[in-house]
């Protein structure tokens, strides 16, 4: 990608994930009058996680709109604005609250184009801060992305780095379809290189974060970060892990996964959402149904969240989702099993 070549010659500029999202929002609003933000407390409060920050002062209350606590209503409003020429970017304050907005996202946003025979498009973006690790318990900590990946008509993203958070949000705003972006709350303060210009990271393309030969670890969002850290440790044990950051759940970049498995012969899928019926099952099945299955030297392992709501107690909360140690152990076992 040309912008990545450009990056090399530019000064390294570090932003937090939250700052990167804010920069994307600001650049999108500057570039296109149709773009507006709305959601609960996104205005003067600056967003529950500080993502919108000072945007209301830069763009005014007409374009950074504080809404009542009405998740169904605001999701529907995004649909209505999108089909009549606007580019709404909606924030669902905690992704858990999307349960209240399901009707509009699943029955309306996802289906309008199809039901209307292609005569309308729904270019809207929904940002959903989610994930566990903040002691917020079962109704403020879920990872519900797999639900939406199950719905034809929606696109579902999970950027894991500040760079991707900015580039994928800008790509999502350009996209003529409804796009849901799940942002892990623990990632908001993480920092990384973010180019200043308004670049795009293509939707539907995974990133190989680390090359390896013994095992492929596929993850997204915070699990991609944990997998990278785990791969560092595995390297000290003599295990070469390839880490794929999915970035996009729907559409999914199966080609990149398949090529990696062809090379490593082992696959570990890591995700924070509940293990059962989740993203891991889908990726495993895609491998099982493809010719890549014949390249496997060991059964695929899924490392997902426990089949339990996220608990409040920090010891339990940590145990409820895969941690770096779990990834190291699972990958090492997988490699050893494949050798046996």
């Amino acid at each position: 990608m040309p912008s990545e070549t450009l990056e090399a010659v530019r000064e390294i500029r570090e932003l937090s994930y939250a700052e990167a999202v804010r920069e994307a929002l600001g650049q999108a609003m500057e570039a296109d009058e149709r773009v507006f933000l709305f959601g609960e407390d996104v205005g003067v409060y600056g967003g529950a996680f500080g993502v919108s920050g000072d945007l209301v002062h830069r763009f005014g209350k007409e374009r950074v709109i504080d809404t009542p606590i009405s998740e169904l209503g605001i999701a529907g409003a995004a649909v209505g604005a999108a089909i009549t020429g606007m580019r709404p970017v909606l924030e669902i304050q905690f992704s858990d609250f999307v349960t209240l907005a399901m009707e509009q996202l699943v029955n309306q946003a996802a289906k309008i184009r199809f039901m209307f025979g292609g005569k309308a498009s729904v270019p809207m973006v929904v940002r959903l801060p989610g994930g566990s690790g903040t002691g917020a318990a079962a109704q403020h900590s879920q990872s519900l992305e797999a639900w939406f990946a199950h719905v034809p008509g929606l696109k579902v993203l999970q950027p894991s780095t500040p760079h991707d958070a900015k580039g994928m949000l800008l790509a999502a705003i350009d996209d003529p379809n409804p796009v849901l972006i799940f942002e892990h709350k623990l990632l908001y303060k993480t920092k990384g290189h973010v180019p200043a210009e308004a670049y795009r990271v293509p939707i539907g393309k995974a990133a190989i974060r680390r090359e390896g030969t013994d095992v492929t670890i596929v993850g997204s969002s915070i699990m991609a970060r944990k997998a990278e850290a785990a791969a560092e440790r595995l390297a000290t044990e003599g295990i070469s892990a390839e880490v794929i950051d999915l970035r996009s759940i729907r559409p999914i970049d199966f080609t990149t996964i398949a090529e990696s498995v062809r090379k490593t012969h082992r696959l570990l899928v890591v995700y924070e959402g509940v293990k059962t019926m989740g993203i891991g099952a889908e990726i495993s099945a895609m491998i099982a149904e493809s010719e890549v299955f014949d390249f496997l030297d060991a059964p695929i392992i899924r490392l997902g969240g426990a089949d339990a709501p996220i608990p409040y107690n920090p010891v339990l909360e940590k145990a409820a989702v895969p941690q770096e140690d779990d990834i190291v152990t699972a990958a090492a076992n997988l490699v050893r099993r494949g050798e046996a």
Partner: protein
Amino acid sequence: MSADQKPNQRPELAALDDATVAQALTRMHLIRKFEEAAEASYMRGLIHGTMHLSIGQEASAVGTTLPLEAHDYILSTHRGHGHCIARGAEPRLMFAEFFGKETGYCKGRGGSMHIADVEGGNLGANGIVGGGLPIAVGVGMSIKAQKNGRVCMVFFGDGASNEGAFHEALNMASIWKLPVVFVCENNKYGMSMDIGHAMAVANVADRAAAYGMPGHCLDGNDLAGVAAVAKVAIARARSGEGPSLIECKTYRWRGHSKSDRNLYRSKEEIEEWRNQDPIRRLEDELKAHDRFDAATLMKLEEDAQRDIDAAVEFARACPDPDPKDLTRDVYAL
């Protein structure tokens, strides 16, 4: 014959000139004939899907939309054929959609419950009770941001007024003074649930007070009366004063859908409402004031019947969609 020569004429009816009345009556006939032909098509096995007929509710669909301008938007319900016709949709393209044909408004993907004519400002009927209400809020936001002076009229039933979507939408439209007109077609039943058992207040329009907007409770079978109130609500929306809630009390002569055995209401009740047929009422009033003679009125009805018959024949002859195009419009490229 001009309206002002008839001193006894109600001002609501006198306000509508002959051309407007003829157009309204034509559309009411088209709705009635469309629904009857839809039912007949089902009986003859020409369709395999379901349908929700609005026979008896024609004055509400036509009266509320009569004062809209060509570029205004509407959003409709699962009982939405009438709203499409009221906004000038072509019956032959509607029948093609109803028959699931590639030539239909939605290329056969939407069917009875999802007829949309986006270019014509009809942003679609909806299979979810109350589904269009929040969407109307966003359309209102869009109109306001684009300063294009349009209005969005959204239809829903009495049942939908018990959904959270109704309350969220009315509240937001009101706090932001959006150019939206909420039209409740209260046909007395949410499927089989009598409104008296489903709602703690007597009228849906009473709920407007909770959202700081005018609420109008109307005889929904009176075309001229409905049109007069809709005109006021539309003008209010367009001038930036905000939304209104109109409740049209009306009745569906048929069951909720084709599976309905009508066990929850009496023949007498249905008969009582049939006697308030909105089409005959309007015709009788026009005749009483010598605005149209019987032959002219008869011709309007016959023309409508001919258009509908032709629409059915057109739709029957149209091709089914090609299965290879199944996933064509899931995503925009």
